[in-house]
């Protein structure tokens, strides 16, 4: 399956590269012979390079060592760095998150892996009360350079307790930084940036993206490559409507943009990268240009990331809107297991296409047909 996906992506990216923003334009010269990298390898290489560069960095979590990582993201690291720096922990999220925070208090730089962010709820007190708030509550005496990472959001057929998206929950907490990569170079550049960052970071990956392959330039492959935290990226420039998305939904948004372009709607797709701090400048500048907004996310609709983006537009760019903003989010139900129900509970490309058309005042039915 990943093979099919890969072919689709590379075919698509050659096309879309014609329209992407300044950074990716430099890729054009490499696109035909570009090296490809899976998101998994991108993350693995980022971990490897940062652990090699700084002896204080260490990895901790369930199955990260001997098993090479529950999703093989930490493959080869135990062998290379030894059990002191790649720690297989007992089964206690609260325990190892707390221990990671304590190690960070005392000067190490832990990377704590949750097998899925659904399990991070068992450790959320340490993430919020011990990590996020400590620098503030200690008046700057205690810094917490910790990274909490792992897969977030829905996978395939893993039901309610393995499928929730936590971007909105963590994104609401001051003191935390929250990031969500999509492409392989997002994954690489952002993970390197957060490991070096002195603040506590929640790094939301996606299980289904691990095997997806994307072209990477030699600049990305260089060990000093690092992206800026807090900067959204315009994946596809457009003029008619702004679509914001993060993580897997960026792929859906790009596909929707392709469908829409055939119907004469030129959508601009923003890959948020950073949930907190949210790049309000880029989003608002884009809406001021296109005058229409569609937000896309996998998570629950109420108090979601899209809600915050809409509020930001209303506060800063109200007069520029030509139509009400459209929000696409996961269904307001715990994720069901059956494949047909799961499909209906998650945003599909057709949903984004329909929402964008509504934002452009083309009449479209609201509900999806099965």
């Amino acid at each position, binding site marked *: 399956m990943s093979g099919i996906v890969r072919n689709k992506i590379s075919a698509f990216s050659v096309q879309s590269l014609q329209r992407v923003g300044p950074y990716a334009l430099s890729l054009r010269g490499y696109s035909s012979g570009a090296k490809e990298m899976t998101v998994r390898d991108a993350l693995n290489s980022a971990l490897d390079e940062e652990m090699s560069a700084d002896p204080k960095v260490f990895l901790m979590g369930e199955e990260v060592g001997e098993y090479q990582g529950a999703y093989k993201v930490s493959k080869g690291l135990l062998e290379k760095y030894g059990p002191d720096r790649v720690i297989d922990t007992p089964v*206690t999220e609260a325990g190892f998150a707390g221990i990671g925070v304590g190690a960070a208090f005392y000067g190490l730089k832990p990377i704590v892996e949750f097998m899925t962010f659904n399990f991070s709820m068992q450790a959320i007190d340490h993430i919020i009360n011990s990590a996020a708030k400590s620098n503030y509550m200690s008046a700057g005496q205690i810094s917490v350079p910790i990274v909490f990472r792992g897969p977030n959001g829905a996978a395939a057929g893993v039901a309610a307790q393995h499928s929730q998206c936590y971007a909105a929950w963590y994104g609401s907490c001051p003191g935390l930084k929250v990031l969500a990569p999509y492409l392989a170079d997002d994954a690489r550049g952002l993970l390197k940036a957060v490991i070096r960052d002195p603040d506590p970071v929640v790094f939301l990956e996606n299980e289904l993206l691990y095997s997806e392959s994307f072209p990477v330039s030699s600049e990305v492959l260089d060990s000093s490559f690092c992206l800026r935290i807090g900067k959204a990226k315009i994946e596809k420039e457009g003029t008619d409507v702004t679509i914001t998305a993060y993580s897997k939904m960026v792929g859906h948004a790009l596909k929707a943009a392709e469908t829409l372009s055939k119907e004469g709607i030129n959508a601009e797709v923003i890959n948020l990268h950073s949930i907190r701090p949210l790049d309000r400048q880029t989003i608002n500048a884009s809406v001021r240009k296109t005058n229409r907004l569609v937000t896309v996310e996998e998570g629950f609709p109420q108090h979601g990331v899209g809600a915050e983006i809409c509020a930001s537009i209303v506060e800063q760019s109200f007069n520029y809107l030509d139509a009400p903003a459209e929000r696409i989010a996961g269904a307001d139900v715990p994720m069901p297991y059956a494949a047909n129900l799961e499909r209906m509970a998650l945003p599909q490309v057709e949903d984004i296409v329909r929402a964008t058309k509504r934002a452009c005042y083309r009449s479209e039915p609201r509900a999806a047909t099965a």
Partner: protein
Amino acid sequence: MAAYLLKSKNLINHLKPRIGLFGSIVSDCSLSSCLTHYQKSKFDPNLRNPDEISRIKSTLFVPRRFESVRAEKQLSSHDVDDDEKENSQVLEFPIGKVTFSPEMKFEAESSEQCVPCYRILDDNGQPIAHSNFIELSEDVAVKMYINMLTLQIMDTTFYEAQRQGRISFYVTSTGEEAITVASAAALRIDDVIFPQYREPGVLLWRGFTLQQFTNQLFGNKDDYGKGRQMPVHIGTNKLNYFTVASTIATQIPHAVGAAYSLRMDKKNACAVTYFGDGGTSEGDFHAALNFAAVTESPVIFICRNNGWAISTPVSDQFRSDGVVVKGRAYGVRSIRVDGNDALAIYNAVSAARKMAIEEHKPVLLEALTYRVGHHTTSDDSTKYRPADEIEFWRTKRDPITRFRKWVQQNRWWSDEAESELRNNIRKQIVQAIQNAERLEKPSVTELFTDVYDALPLNLREQESSLRETVRRHPQDYPPDVPV
């Protein structure tokens, strides 16, 4: 019993095809052990003593069940020495070599006697005969006494100040002065402290001044905490004392993480964390002890078992023999100490520190004591416990009086020194309160700093907009907050 036999019959039928799995039927050790015994002794049930039969009910299997036992013999024979075969059967499980026993014996939920408690001084401050302990020098002993008494007077004065409405909240350490001061005395300044909130004694020992304590209580501009925290939620990295957090027991895994870091740095120091009896019910306590044992981290866990978690007595908190027995469950060495005996605490913590650093072993220390004061100023403990019980512990079991008797007996202290110190401290605290009250509060800049390492754009915007608003409407804002 019939039901048990039926169940075991099924198990045996399953055993036949599943030879390879025999070793992994851990849950029914008694079953397999009985089979072993049955096979080895080759006894005829009819010849057995009826009393024994009733005791070993589960061995009443029909002889044809013998065949399945051969599987076990095949598996275990290569694991056991020939000598051992005769006496006891041993099988290696993932947890290690386990000896079998034909006796179905449940480990009792508690032993008949409580774990004994280490003490050096009796209730009158006299060393108990045959006690061996590290002798304290006069300097250390007198400094300990002075700090304990300072803590007591500080607590009384600040408690009164809260009742007068001058501060919003306070937490006393009354009755537990020996634990914090004596343990701090046994540690070095490099040992990092992860406190709960009833450990200002440690800060006092390390040199935190009365004025600094007072500034934190009033949240003024000289407060190290920049007015961010409730009273007594102090922290200062200058004294290696991590900021108090209100969340119970979260500091325990933090301490283990820091200890891991110390071990990686190969430092001659350990992490020390304090918590109460209530804190041991939190999941964090269990995860931390387990982790410390597995990672062999140099950490000392000091539990102030003072009998009460707000209004919850220990009998409602746990049913084990206190906290000391929990160490064993996690593979952590532990000791129970008389928390009101400063000398015993000093000795035990010194020894624990040595073990932690030299052997890379976590150590659990349960200090038995009594919370003489209320939980905090928001509590009135006479509502849930008898006043005469409180009075008894305040007077007859006071750790300070007890230590004073020992120090005075050594001619290191006198009644004159006592009254002089009492006056002195009281005066200092009153002066500190007056100073602190007069000082300004932290400026509004401090509302926005330290959320992140660097001030982000949105907070910079909010700060300038707040300044603008305060300037335009000064009557809506308190006068003692500098803009």
